[in-house]
């Protein structure tokens, strides 16, 4: 059981939310990044997280396991004037779904705020502990 354990868990939650926000911003920034058909398309980044156990004196919280890429076949777009177009006039569009990204953006943002709220309350608790015995 760590000193300031509640803060540690909340900070881990905020960190994971920030990593998620970074991934979302990466995805949205690349929503129009076309690639040639002989290249790997830009794939949406997904953050894979895991609970950090509280059992056996573990700190608890959450951690990022890895950044995965959204699977699936690339979507081809017919655009023969595109400099990357192949002999059929096709280019590969990234598999970023803006509606999904914007929804995730809201969730990640709210999650970040929730963890900051925990930090505020936990700090207030620790401060009152420091005041024990004050005259």
């Amino acid at each position, binding site marked *: 059981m760590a000193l300031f354990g509640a*803060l*540690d868990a909340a900070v881990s939650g905020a960190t994971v939310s920030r990593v998620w926000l970074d991934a979302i911003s990466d995805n949205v920034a690349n929503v129009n990044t076309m690639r040639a058909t002989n290249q790997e398309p830009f794939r949406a980044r997904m953050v894979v997280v895991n609970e950090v156990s509280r059992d056996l004196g573990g700190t608890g919280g959450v951690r990022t396991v890895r950044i995965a890429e959204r699977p699936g076949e690339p979507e081809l777009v017919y655009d023969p004037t595109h400099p990357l177009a192949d002999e059929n006039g096709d280019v590969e569009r990234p598999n970023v779904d803006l509606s999904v990204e914007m929804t995730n953006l809201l969730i990640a943002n709210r999650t970040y705020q929730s963890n900051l709220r*925990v930090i505020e*309350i936990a700090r207030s*608790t620790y401060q*009152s502990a420091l*005041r024990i*015995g004050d005259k």
Partner: protein
Amino acid sequence: MLFTDRTTQTVEWALKAQAERQRVVAHNIANVNTPGFRATKLEFEQSLATALGRTNGGTARAERSATNDPVGLNGNNVSLEKELETLDKSNIHYEALTSALTSKFSQLRTAIGR
């Protein structure tokens, strides 16, 4: 018996339990989007009241158990509103306990003439 009286010991125990409850809540909120995560809660009030009710002394224990909140599509059942409510309440309880402890110490200070 200066610092081992019943009041001090009880308040200290309750402070520890409230702090642990806050750690459990922080853990739940940190995992509010983790797929498959199940929230837990820490309960001790009943056990403490029972232990205090016994004239010849008893042992109180804080027990962590799963909440029975509905599970969402990703297998997660953290209820953010409930967790924040628990956290706020626990914080206020904690402050009440610290001021109780401060009063107790102030009594002792009076007793030793300072």
